[in-house]
């Protein structure tokens, strides 16, 4: 594996980059402050990134922010979808993150039992 492979990826991916940069359909923001990290936010973030990558969801962006302000509910995740109110999820773990990808991000149904 070497950097030559990045060129192949570039050629393959460049066509949908313009679309993606214009407007991501969904933004998933994971709280990565000190208490979030201590509660396992890194694994939650990793799961979101991997699931989005695996499903080739080019219109979804996963990112992180500092403290979400509710240490007792960390790890916390916010899902922003165009023209819909943001959904905040608390006490997340990798399994819950997978369900949010399938049910909310792919099928459009927020997972109310994880929402706070």
């Amino acid at each position, binding site marked *: *594996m070497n*950097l030559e*492979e*990045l*060129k192949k*990826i*570039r050629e*393959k*991916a*460049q066509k949908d*980059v313009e679309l*993606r*940069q214009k407007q991501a359909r969904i933004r998933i923001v*994971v709280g*990565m*402050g*000190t208490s979030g*990290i*201590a509660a396992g936010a*890194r*694994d939650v*973030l*990793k799961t979101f*990134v*991997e699931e*989005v*990558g*695996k*499903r*080739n*969801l*080019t219109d979804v*962006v*996963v*990112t*992180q922010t*500092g*403290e979400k302000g509710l240490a007792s509910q960390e790890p916390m995740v916010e899902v922003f979808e165009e023209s819909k109110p943001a959904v905040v999820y608390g006490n997340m773990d990798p399994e819950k993150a997978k369900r949010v990808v399938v049910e909310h991000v792919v099928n459009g149904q927020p997972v109310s039992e994880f929402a706070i």
Partner: protein
Amino acid sequence: MEDLSSHIMDIVMNSVTAGAKHIAITIAKDPQTAIMSLSVSDDGRGMDAEMAQKVQDPFFSTKTGRKVGLGIPLLKGTAETTGGSFALTSEKGAGTSITATFDSRHPDLPPLGNIRDTFFVLIVSHPEIDFDLRYAVDGKDFLLDTAEWRRELDGVPLNHPEVIGFLSNYLDEHL
């Protein structure tokens, strides 16, 4: 923090919050002395001398409810209780550098943890930041400069699903 990789994640988040565009992270272990060193340096907005002193104080952080900096006294505490050292230098408008060392034979030293996942999530969740990463421990010498990758990718972001897959495999293979 249960392991050093989580400490690193936390310290680097301060750099991200400080608006850094370039962040260098080095984890190295001296095979002769068994001293483990961790350094993070960024080109973020930096701090003046007074603030640089205050962020090392755990009580300052919690009393003011400040969002940034709680991880610094935690890392400092871990370094100093495991026979190591801690240094923070910062210049307002120029950036901040943190170096912590640990005696890797100390019984209270937390495990290294999953450095691979820390590198992975940092890169893909901040594709606009150049990460210059080095991991030189126990005979391994891993280097990754994401600026180089970005040049090759010519506009395709590091968080594109194709690149995420590539990066994941690359880290598994090399780190």
